């Protein structure tokens, strides 16, 4: 990509993450995941898509279509919701430094 994208790429890669949702104690029930954006690291605040929470809504997806509803509190989802956020190595982290030392390239077969 061109030079104009350098700063944007760095920000995007620092901010990008993936969010997984699953049911506590039910690994076979599957998991749902989407992408997200890290807004802040201290405290850790992440914005992601709401679609992965639909299976966990206590009152079902109809809760999302109520006229005039701009937000729903976290407890709109069932108590067994378990969330995990994963992101890549940051410049300051040990993982990031390890990345520079270990050429972890791979070539999956098409």
């Amino acid at each position, binding site marked *: *990509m061109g030079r*104009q*994208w350098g700063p*944007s790429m*760095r*920000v*995007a*890669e620092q*901010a990008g993450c*993936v*969010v*997984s949702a699953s049911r506590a104690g039910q690994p076979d029930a*599957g*998991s*749902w*995941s*989407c*992408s*997200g*954006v*890290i*807004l*802040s690291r*201290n*405290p*850790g*605040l*992440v*914005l*992601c*898509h*709401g*679609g*992965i*929470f*639909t299976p966990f809504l206590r009152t079902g*997806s*109809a809760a*999302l*279509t109520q006229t005039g509803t*701009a*937000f*729903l*509190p*976290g407890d*709109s989802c069932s108590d067994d919701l378990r*969330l*995990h*956020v*994963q*992101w*890549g*190595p*940051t410049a*300051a982290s040990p993982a990031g430094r390890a*990345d520079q030392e270990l050429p*972890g390239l*791979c070539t*999956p*077969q098409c």
Partner: protein
Amino acid sequence: ASLGLEPGAPSRARARPLQPPRPAQLLLLLSCPAFRSHFARLFGADAVDQWHFVSSAPDDAVSEEEEEDQLRALGWFALLRVQRGAAAEERRGPVVTVAPLGAVVKGAPLLACGSPFGAFCPDIFLNTLSRGVLSNAAGPLLLTDARCLPGTEGGGVFAARPAGALVALVAAPLCWKAREWVGLTLLCAAAPLLQVARWALARLHPGSASLSVLLPPPDVSTPRGLPLRDLGPPWAAAAVLVECGTVWGSGVVVAPRLVVTCRHVAPREAARVLVHSATPKNVAIWGQVVFATQETSPYDIAVVSLEEELNGVPTPVPAGHFHEGEPVSVVGFGVFGQACGPSVTSGILSAVVRVDGSPVMLQTTCAVHGGSSGGPLFSSGSGDLLGIVASNTRDNNTGATYPHLNFSIPITVLQPALKQYSQTGDLGGLRELDHTTEPVRVVWRLQRPLSEVPRSKL
């Protein structure tokens, strides 16, 4: 939840070290009311064509209930709080700045960053980048031609200027209209979402109001609140919507009272057509089709003479040469028609087809949809008018449409005749478009003479 993809053996090895997954807590689910109302207007049940946003092909087995759930959740996002981790990590402050709504103009370059297939093989897919432009906007509902995949929902879309500012989040990576993949990604602007988040946090957690203070504020160094319809590259203003009876398409202003469009948009000479311009202001002017090529002509062209001048609309400079590989943009009223102003899609000039050394057909990688016919193809660098969009591609055997392979009539084919008509009123030059040589007809029929048809060895 299951993708049906099987990671091959090599991908089990870590391509790049990741932070271990960190537990998080759902603070709130939020949506932007303006996004939802624009979505209902543009894509709702009243829309003429049926829209789908499921992350699969229209023919794939997705239950109605599943699709309904996806549709209901489409404009919803979630704010999470991540559990504390290593001290070194915690010291890091805000990660992003947020572009105010309206600060990024139509046609501006965007960078989408998401993880295709979500949590599937993050060591391979985490933070995949995709580039495009802001194609269209209706309030906080934005569209980009950056290509995104299922699983990138919630991914960030960033601006080149202001550098790295978060513009929007991916709401739906794939859009289908009338069972055709549109090739645009639906976005929700970040600034109004964060505004809702601040307000909601203050109401739900009055004791922890400091959280809302920690959300990134809009970047105040950029202008805000500017009406998007009036912005964008100046050359884009030359694109107009042409209505002829029940048919509509796009066109381009080539002189203050002269518009070029496609024959299949305005097919009959002497027919009255209504020409809408969206920039610099919304106007509609009646015109008359003064010339349309015959059905037998490979050049699908019509010329409209307007009853009044289109004031303030810049006349584009016609290009004299074409450079394969150069960045180009298509401007047209495809997808939304009048409901949302013209869309800008970006790509490169992928091929220039010549007959006897003269360009007779241009191909691009821009996404082109029904309704874009007659619209202009511009050089993104110079803003020069390269051609008139005539069609995209459909495979008649499978019914599949390919928006990223499309065909334009080079402006060099039309310019001498348009100049002649504009200066003298003489249609002679335009009439010559009805008498093209056989090699040109062959090119536009997408056929070669039978003797040259390559035989498949499969």
